[in-house]
Each structure stands twice: as C-alpha cells, then as structure tokens.
C-alpha cells in the first residue's frame, strides 16, 4: 500500500493511503499516523478516495489513529469515503464515532 502525507493547514496533515486498507497494510498505515503525529500534526485527515477496499483491520487501524490523535489533544477525521468503506463504518456504527467529510481539504474547516 502506497501512502502520501501532505500538510493541508496549520497542524493539519492529510494521509492518503492507496489500494487496500486491510490486515496486511494496517501496520504501514499506523506508522504513517505515528509519523504525522510525531511531526506535530495533531489534526489528521484520512483521505479514503484511493482506497478500493477496507476491512475490519483497516477500520481498527483508523480507530487506533483516532485514539492516538486524541491522546495528543488532536483529532482524526475521514474524507472521501467509498461506499464499501462506508458500509463497514455503518454496520459497526463507527460512523457515530468517526467524523466523515466529503473533501479532505475542508475536513477541518470548522475549527
């Protein structure tokens, strides 16, 4: 799984994983979150527009990122969620916990 990390505003980073977010790629994704938080980005946007498939391990990695961000007084939000990833969020009711936005650039526009 490829992933880009780009700064999109003060203290805000967009992580954009590409391909499948699953058990195999989850450690790589978690490492990306760790790197972003380590560089002082406490507002993390996970842009899922290039994710073809996400399973429960992928969701677990995102939840883990949310916990880590909150521990540092930050927040993690999702953007451009596909129907498949959206279904995983909906069935698990994690859409109540994770804030979902249409566009990565405006995910933190309200703060």
């Amino acid at each position: 799984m490829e992933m880009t990390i780009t700064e999109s505003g003060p203290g805000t980073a967009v992580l954009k994983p590409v391909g499948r977010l699953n058990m195999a790629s989850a450690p790589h994704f978690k490492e990306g979150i760790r790197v972003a938080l380590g560089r002082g980005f406490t507002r993390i946007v996970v842009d899922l527009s290039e994710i073809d498939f996400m399973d429960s391990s992928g969701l677990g990695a995102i939840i883990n990122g949310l916990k880590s961000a909150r521990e540092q007084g930050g927040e993690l939000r999702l953007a451009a969620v596909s129907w498949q990833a959206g279904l995983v969020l909906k069935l698990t009711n994690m859409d109540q916990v994770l804030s979902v936005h249409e566009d990565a650039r405006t995910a933190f526009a309200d703060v």
Partner: protein
Amino acid sequence: MGKATGAPEIAPIRKSDPEMLAALHGPTFVNMGKNTSELLGAPYVALVLVDQTEVLFGERHGFTTETTPRDSALWDRVLTTDEVVVIEDADADPDFADEGLTVGGLRVRFFAARVIHSASGDRIGAYCIAGPDPRVPDASVVSTVAELSRFIEDELGKQHDLLRVAEVQRALLPKTVPPLPGYQVAGLCLPAQAAGGDFYDWYAIESGLAFTLADVMGKGVAAAILAATVRATVRSASRKKNVLAGVERAADALAHDLDETQSFVTLFHARLEAETGRFSYVDAGHGLTLLVSADGSHRRLKGGDLPLGIALSGHRRSRHRAVLEEGCTLVTFSDGVLDLYDGSLASVDSVADIVRAASSAQKIVEEIARLALEGDAADDITVLAIRRSGGPI
C-alpha cells in the same frame, strides 16, 4: 509432553492424512524443486515422504513419477541418519554397483539427501537431489540440502501448529442443540485461513436459549486467540440477569485485552424465551441479523451500538426486543457473507432468499457453506440460524 529420549524413529505417514497430503501436493513448496535444481545444478529434485511400503514423491523437478517402493537400500541409508547422505557414484557403491541405482524410474549415479523430521521429531521423509552423472558435490551443495530440508521441517511444523489451532477452535463451537421443542438451531463457521476471529455460540438458559455471533477484527491465529477469550467472557457474563448487563459486563472485562491488542469485536448476543418466541438482544456493531417471517417478508434487526473495545466516549449500549413468531426464522451472520454476493447491503436480500427457500435451519447454513466453498471466500464466514416451527408444537 516430549517424546522419550533416544534416536528418532522412522514414522511412516498415512497417505490419507490431510496434513501430509498438503505437504506433498499443497502450495507451500511450489516451484521449490525447480529453484533447487537451478541453484544446485541437479537435474532431479524431490521432496519425499515415506509410508509403510512406498516412497511418495511430492514437490519435484525433472521427473513425474508419483511413487517408488521403499525396499531399496537407498532409503534405509537416508532414513537412519540425520546427516546428509551423499552417494557420489552409485555404480561404485557396493550397495548399488551390481544393478545400478534406480530412483522413481530414473537411472541415477549421483544422489544426496537429508531426512525430514515431523513436528514431533520422527523421520517421515527426505529432501533429495540427484543426477545421471557421477558428482563430487561442493560442501556448499551438501549444506544447502541440509538447510532446505530444515526449512521444509519448519514449514511442516508451522502447518501442524495451525491445524491444531483450527482443531481447538472447531472444538469450541457448540456441536449439539439443547432440547428446544418447536425450534431448529444450526450454525456454520468457515475461517478464511486455518483459524479466524469469527465464532458462534449457544447454550441453554432457564427460559430457553442464549446465542451469540461475534467477529474479532483481523484473521488467523491472533484473531482466534481473542475469539476464544471473547467467547469465554461472554459465557461467564451471561449469568447476569439480563442480556444487556451480560454484554456490558463482558465488554468491561475485555476492555483491557482489546485495548492492549488494538483490536475490537462486533457481536450479536440474544436470549430467547422458548415458550413465547420473545427475545432480547444487544447488537454491538454487528448489524447483520435478519428476521424472515412466515409470510416471506424480512427485516434487518435494529442495532446502533458500538463494538466491544471501542471506549472513546461514555457510550452505553441498549437492549432491544423482538419476537420470533411461529414459522419465522432469525439468521445472523458475519460480514464475510456479504462478500459472497456483491459486498453491498443488497446482499442481505440474497441471504433472505436463501432463508425462504431452505426447508430447515440446517439447510440454510448448508447453502451458505456451499456458496462459500464455491466462491473461495476471502473473509471468515459465520452464520447462525434459528427457525421456529410453523405448526402446533
């Protein structure tokens, strides 16, 4: 529990043993013969296992023979030492000079092999290289044969462990249904790998039946260990007076383990009152439970609560109630079932079709098992079906 000390024994395999068949013909060692042949410059390569009377050729290169008799002096020599056996020129070897050495129908002069031990240390076969011309192999060739045979032993040991995990996990599934007049109960759990994070469970309670379907994040052995923990915790928490208190008790007990392992569990847990068909349930992020009525209509049971292991807020779960009317079927299943269709929520309607067409609860799970095996499912597939008889009980 180790074996008694002493020399390893030659332990013939059983040809019907699925573990050994997988070793001989499974994907684990595919192309190993070809690669070994190129690496060591040996025309013939074979992984062999021995049964009572025959040597069975598994992954091999340079020939197609399946078996050869075991009575040759060659196999006695290979199977009675842990060292690499090297025959530089069979025609100059007193054991073979008279008739020449034939292996698997091939005339062989150079031969080198090292025994393969099973997970319990018995000698069950060998990894062999050979050629039609005499050869004095480099020390590196001999040591590579030894290393490759040890690699095979390691792999067989891992497969052996995995199969034991799978056995234990299967043993934790309920095999019999408590007496429940007027109801049929059936379950299915097909892990995508040897073991997995899904399970179903049921057991008698005073008023009828408690049942669970759960899906631990991830796949494989790590998920299976957590699944066994979740099962035990939910069972022991079921002594609580209602279904919600039971699930919350289990969630609290599991919180630390799930946090440490960075995992979470989706779960449907219910208690059915046999006399009335009334049941109460908690849906912790599961969301895939259907009620199919006698008239053929179906609805997805309401959920709305978070999985176990998600403790981001002071979220408390809720208890829901519904009734399994006469002629009605409840089916709850893991999300792997959706992937048997198009993966969308529309797949739920296809599951309802199976329920309607099936003549019993058992037939429902059999049909889903058939689809899963046909489709080479990538995710764990678990189903629990309960049907209440239509007529007078």
